[in-house]
């Protein structure tokens, strides 16, 4: 049995998951191969590429194995995995924020959006593009996890409000209000700089 076969049949997929949870290395690898792309997409959008993302990816698959008894099979496994990946990302962001706060106690460096206005315009177009991208990046980084999650789901993953709500485990109204707030904040930070 391989992943391509298991994707066609939820029962086969479930069997594969049970084997993986019981310690079957081949089954575990199959699961990882099947969902690594989905998990990587969500996690790197939330955390950016790097060691943190790799660690969060591993954590996602471990949590999937542990959560297997609670998976009722009434939702698609990909949705279930995406939800776990999003939760792991939010935990990692919260940890990162805590660490940053701890570090910034003894530092005057502002990691938030406060200094985005101070990025100088350069004559060189390429460098200007890079600076703008960096600026937007920092503005996005300044969003807290729950707002960022909504932006990633709606804007990047192109999920509907309903899907986003299901994946994040929040009401649809909350998805919309968080999205509005996040985009207002980003616009407030970026518009004056991008218009220059």
């Amino acid at each position, binding site marked *: 049995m391989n992943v391509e076969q298991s994707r066609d049949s939820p029962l086969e997929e479930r069997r594969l998951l049970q084997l993986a949870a019981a*310690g079957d*290395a081949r089954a*575990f*690898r199959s699961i*990882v*191969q099947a969902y*690594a*792309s989905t998990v*990587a*997409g969500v996690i*790197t*959008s939330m955390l*950016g*590429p790097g060691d943190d*993302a*790799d660690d969060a*990816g*591993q954590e996602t*698959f*471990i949590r999937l*194995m542990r959560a297997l008894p609670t998976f009722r099979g009434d939702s698609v496994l990909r949705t279930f995995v995406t939800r776990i990946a999003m939760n792991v990302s939010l935990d990692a962001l919260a940890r990162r924020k805590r660490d940053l706060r701890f570090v910034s106690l003894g530092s005057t460096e502002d990691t938030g959006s406060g200094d985005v206005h101070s990025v100088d315009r350069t004559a060189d177009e390429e460098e200007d593009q890079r600076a*703008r*991208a960096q600026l*937007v*990046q920092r*503005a*996005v980084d300044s969003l807290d996890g729950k707002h960022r999650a909504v*932006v*990633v789901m*709606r*804007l*990047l993953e*192109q*999920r*509907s*409000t*309903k899907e986003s709500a299901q994946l994040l485990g929040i009401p649809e109204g909350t998805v*919309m209000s968080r*999205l*509005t707030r996040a*985009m*207002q904040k*980003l*616009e407030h930070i*970026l*518009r004056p700089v*991008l218009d220059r």
Partner: protein
Amino acid sequence: MNNAEDNSNAHPPFSSVDAEVKQALASMRRDHFTAGFEDRALARWNRERALSLNTFSVIERLAWRLLPLAVAASLLMAVYSAQHNSAPTASLLARSLGWQSAVWVASVKNSHAETYESVYSTLYGLPLVNSSSGVQ
């Protein structure tokens, strides 16, 4: 923004910086982890399983070791209770389990006590007090 967008993945712009934000997020997004991810994930899963199995087996071994001690202690307490229970009418089982209160109620019933005064007198060996004429 309206609810109509839920019917499709296309959506109206959320703000004037949509494109820039989307581009920034897309530039971070990767469809794969770094090489060897599968091996690292599998190694971690094996470590976690081994740890949880170890914890379970330690608890199980401990429980089996403590079981004879618990049984012996229970038997000793039962024998002690049976020997030191002063209620003569109670069964061996009742005395072993230390059913004191049932024994006392039985003895009070047997004493044909009819008033609170006589019940206290029977229980605590106090002189019976008659409310009209004092101690009997």
